[in-house]
């Protein structure tokens, strides 16, 4: 069904693309919001993702990979969003927007601000690995395929992410490792 819609969209059928985009929107938004920690930035990233998907959908050679391809575009769009936000003269701090409130026992035990700071100190690629793994629940090979990185790099980024979280949760704070960039 999705493949049919993708193939129709590749032939320029905008209604088919609308159906695909509408079905994917909330999922993409939820992921982007968790990577960016900002609802408005997440909306922008998803919009950029969908525009890019429509524009380039004919380059998608395997329609059955549409969802994974969208995720890859989304991570790129989140990266772009972070770069853009750094150039904005005024930025609403992510901590001030749509900040999560403690909802369970674990959350009440930890300093949410510390997690947020540690998370935001990571690169978008590292955040994406954490979100795709721990929120979406994808296995490492699938995360690797989405991000275009070797599975080993996924494990490496998970390691750094976990270490960052541990550092955030365990006083006194140990010096935070510099995120590994690239491979």
């Amino acid at each position, binding site marked *: 069904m999705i493949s049919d819609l993708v193939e129709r969209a590749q032939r320029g059928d905008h209604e088919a693309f609308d159906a695909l985009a509408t079905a994917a929107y909330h999922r993409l938004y*939820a992921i982007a919001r968790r990577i960016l920690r900002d609802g408005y930035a997440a909306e922008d990233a998803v919009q950029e993702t969908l525009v890019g998907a429509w*524009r380039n959908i004919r380059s998608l050679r395997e*329609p059955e990979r549409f969802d994974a391809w969208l995720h890859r575009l989304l991570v790129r769009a989140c990266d772009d969003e972070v770069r853009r936000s750094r150039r904005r003269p005024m930025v609403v701090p992510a901590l001030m927007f749509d900040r999560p409130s403690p909802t369970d026992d674990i959350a009440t035990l930890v300093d*949410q601000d510390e997690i947020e700071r540690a998370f935001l100190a990571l690169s978008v690629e590292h955040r994406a690995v954490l*979100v795709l793994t721990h929120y979406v*629940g994808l296995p490492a090979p699938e995360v*690797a395929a989405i991000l275009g990185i070797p599975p080993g790099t996924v494990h490496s980024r998970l390691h750094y992410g976990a270490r960052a979280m541990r550092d955030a949760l365990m006083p006194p704070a140990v010096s935070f490792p510099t995120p590994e960039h690239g491979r």
Partner: protein
Amino acid sequence: MNPPIDRSDSALRAWLEQGPDHGRPEAIERALAATRRVPQRPGWTYPERWLPVNRALIAAAATVIVVVGAAAFFLRPVANVGPPGSPTPIPTSLPSATPGPLPPELLKSWVGVPHDFPTRSNVQSLTLGYEFGQLSVNANFVYGQSSFTSQASVVGANTLELKAVSNGCGVGLMGHYTWSLSPGGTLLHLALVDDACAERPAAFVGDWHAANCKDTTDMCWGDLEAGTYPTLFYAPRLDPAATPGPLYGGITFTVPDGWAVAGDHTSDVRLLRTSDYAKEGPSGPVGQSTGIEGWIRPAAVMETPMCADAADSKVERTASGLATSLSKRSALAASAVHDITIDGHAGKWVDVHLATDWTSTCGGSEPAVVLIKEAVGGAGSVGDDPYVVGISGQSRFRVVFVDIGKSDLGTSMTAMILVTAPDQTTFDSFVNEAMPIVQSFHFK
């Protein structure tokens, strides 16, 4: 969900679970509306992206691509393409081991010399791609029709195991191939060990060259080892009345170590030193670059202080006509026009920079002028608009025009090659390095 590793994992997971899972309805509508405002790109098109499509900025840039559209693809087999290096020895027996993931050095887009194979004829382009754990071969960029899609894993030293998934082989049929890489990792050779799918080896076996473009939405070689290479899209003999189509090897060129192809499109190709390419981001150069650029079907423009770029139909679109025209432009300080022969084709070259008394800025921050634009015929421009090349500030260009013979439709064609640098000092040292590469151009 993966099992938690420790308390920090649990905390992170709990933290990630918080917050809204749904976007606002108006944001969905806005996003869908935004998709309706952009056209789709042809799948084989790789538009140039590094400069904004803004005519004022375009004219102010040293070398500007307004629009590069229709990219083309692959070619006929070209002899001696790629680095000459000695490949890593290929194992002669199949080691037994637990299948593992492909090593990073294989996780690239690979381009092969086009050739027909079972299930595909009239192959004009050939790529080997790895996505989602699967290797597949694609001919002619036909969407959704990759061939021999196979789950790929490593089962021993330099040995791949391919398990057919779809598109050409019976599901589950296994094959084994050894691989070897050139010293720089840009040339991959796949050799057959065994394959239960009789058709697959013809598609996979052979040489594959890494396409390492920084812009992952683009397709170009990226960093090169010393050797001779084809272009992937550049089509210098594309008739103005002809529609672009797949083309491989529009030119071949030879480089020493330390060079890269940073962009390759139907209308242009851009070669840089690796050191300069390293300074660029995925979106291309910042400021004025030092490099070699090939352009198709150049046309002279009428010079105006307002930076208009109307074609000057009085200037012959030949090497002599175009070079002489540039040498007489009042906006430019130009050298004498010199003869040159490239690949047996006669040409002319002239060095240019802005005249000291030229003050028009074309809306930018420093003096600038339009030099050349794309000649357009019955098929329209290659992109949405004809490309425009300008020069600004202290930039120095060697502009080489070469009469390269006739197009498929019988039109006499001229190609333009630019050697560019941001200032005189850089130009003086770079031009001697660049010209042997320019002289190596072979036009298909």
